[in-house]
């Protein structure tokens, strides 16, 4: 049992996967000596060599495109995209090739490629370094999209993503990289929750709050604050954005009758839209209020001096909970 940061937990997950399977590769910009700009790959090149921890040319389409080729050859590449806003040059390789090749080949090839993306805002960064672009990938058939919110999940989900024979987009909440938790490394992958399961973090009866990635912490804080006012919120860490663990979500919605979804990404066609549409469709008669969404605004991510304003916070979340309860 060790106390580790989320960033460190990803490192440990990568290391465990690389030790278990010599076909696992890590590739991306600055992942070698530097250990990545967030130090997530720190020490890996030293221990596994330049052959397995590959500093690539500065070209994201090339990272994903060559990772596909490596996967076709039997490797399991884990690609690091340096920041969320730099995945777009690789968009074609991700949505037209990585996502579709298995279906194209009638199942005769698998592409076990993981694309790690440090995601979201709140770190005072310049443009393109704080984006939440999960909806693009969650809308793309053929991909799996997951988001971790804490060190323990980070450790296991990294390994589960690598173990998956499907391409997985793994979102790491960059402003939670330095959050700590106890991690019991003796636990095996089998003991971890399935990759595509949501988790009820706090049980409640008045309303359900669904969050993922960086917003999970905010949701938990909101639940604590609400409890002080006598409102019992159920908090769900979505974990898997695609596919959804609809069973867990719908059970909670039926129980509380009120659902609020919170995420950093713009609301229009964000994950909240799908969650609202889906939950409303399957739990129509159980809902006392429409599913409400608390999201980033439908604008480009603002300069960092305004990010506190832009990002959903405890107050905006509680405000939405109150609106939901007022129905």
């Amino acid at each position, binding site marked *: 049992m060790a106390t580790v940061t989320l960033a460190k937990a990803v490192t440990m997950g990568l290391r465990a996967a690389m030790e278990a399977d010599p076909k696992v590769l890590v590739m991306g910009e600055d992942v070698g000596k530097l250990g990545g700009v967030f130090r997530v790959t720190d020490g890996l090149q030293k221990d596994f060599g330049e*052959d397995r921890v590959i500093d*690539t*040319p500065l*070209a994201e*389409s*090339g990272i*994903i*495109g*060559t*990772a*596909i*080729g*490596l*996967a*076709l*050859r*039997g*490797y399991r590449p884990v690609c690091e995209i340096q920041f969320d806003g730099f995945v777009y*040059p690789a968009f*074609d*390789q991700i949505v*037209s*090739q990585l996502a*579709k*090749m*298995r*279906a*194209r*080949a*009638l*199942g*005769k*090839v*698998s592409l076990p490629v993981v694309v790690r993306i440090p995601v979201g805002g709140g770190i005072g960064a310049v443009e393109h370094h704080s984006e939440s672009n999960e909806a693009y990938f969650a809308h793309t*058939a*053929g991909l*799996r999209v997951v988001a971790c919110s804490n060190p323990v999940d980070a450790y296991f989900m990294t390994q589960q993503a690598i173990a*998956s*024979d*499907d391409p997985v987009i793994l979102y790491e909440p960059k402003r939670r990289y330095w959050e700590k938790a106890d991690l019991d490394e003796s636990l095996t992958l089998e003991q971890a929750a399935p990759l*595509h399961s949501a988790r009820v973090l706090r049980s409640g009866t008045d309303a359900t709050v669904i969050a993922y990635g960086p917003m999970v912490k905010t949701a938990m804080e909101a639940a604590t604050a609400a409890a002080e006012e006598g409102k019992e919120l159920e908090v769900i860490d979505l974990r898997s954005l*695609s*596919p*959804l*663990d*609809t069973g867990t979500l719908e059970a909670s919605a039926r129980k509380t009758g009120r659902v609020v979804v919170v995420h950093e990404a713009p609301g229009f066609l964000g994950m909240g839209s799908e969650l609202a549409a889906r939950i409303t469709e399957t739990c129509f008669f159980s809902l006392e209020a429409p599913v409400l969404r608390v999201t980033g605004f439908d604008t480009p991510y603002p300069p960092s001096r305004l990010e506190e304003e832009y990002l959903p916070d405890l107050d905006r979340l509680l405000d939405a909970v109150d609106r939901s309860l007022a129905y």
Partner: protein
Amino acid sequence: MTDSALGTRHIPTQGSEPELVQLLTPEGQRVEHPTYSLQISDDELRGLYRDLVLVRRVDAEATALQRQGELGIWASLLGQEAAQVGSGRAMAEDDYAFPTYREHGVAWCRGIDPLNLLGLFRGVNHGGWDPDEKNFHLYTIVIGAQTLHATGYAMGMQKDGAESAVIAYFGDGATSQGDVNEAFIYASVFNAPVVFFCQNNQWAISEPIEKQTRIPLYQRAMGFGFPGVRVDGNDVLAVLAVTRAALQKAREGSGPTLIEAYTYRMGAHTTSDDPTRYRLTHELESWKLKDPIERVKAYLVRTGKADQAYFDALEREADGLAAHVRRGCLEMPDPDPLSIFDHVYAERHPLLEEEREQFAAYLETFDAVDAHDAGDR
């Protein structure tokens, strides 16, 4: 082979056409080349001729099938047979090819049943073969994307310590895509065993080569630090020799080569295209004189390496192959509607299972109606 052997680095000179590696003239004269010599038995030579004839016949049959509505579209390789057969036959068994959508001749050389190529164009699948069975990847339609896959695959071979190499096929138009240039960079920086085989057929749909480059394409490689060479793409012997050398170089750890096979798209871009809108027939006429098959035939005939009986037998073989393709095409079953949900994921996916179930139930309501209607009659 030394680096400089393949590395013919011409400085572009306005007006004059750069040199082209050629071993067999359009008139069927065997010529020597200082760098690319080729020892070839009569059997092998006839084998190449057979390939050329058969792939052209398959192509013609597919075009006919499209005209008859059996294929949605067809991308003809007419005119590019030598580029494809020469390079395809240069490959060793363990080498791997990443094609575009037009490499029917390469597929043939790799041992893919031509019938398998038709599925995509008929619309029954997106690619009907197992890539690893013949080391021939699926057709890639997004221009240039496969060059990065090829490079990554070659990087994997390198890691494996395999003594094999990859060929990445692409067209002249593709050279403008960012992906292709990134592939050049990755291949060069990692010294990957990959041969970039560009069939410059002078056209990207309606756009002439001048819309993609102002210097000969093979010179692109210079800027990335690896050799480029232009070969007569209608000369199967030259293509074979040049590709063999490049593959061998790659296998030996000398990194990538760009081969520009200088050829011509004799037909339309695809059966949906109408080239009369954008090109003049005299260009076509001049290229007819450089036909890749005629020159081999002339050579075989003149040297007596093949007689009429041989040509007649080949004709019959081609007829048989065409019949096989036609029959197979007509018999190709439509896919099961529920197969839409198959193979999207390797592992369970609840949303797809749900959609599949609902769709199956929905389809059954029609069966019920049909049964009911049938009962009525």
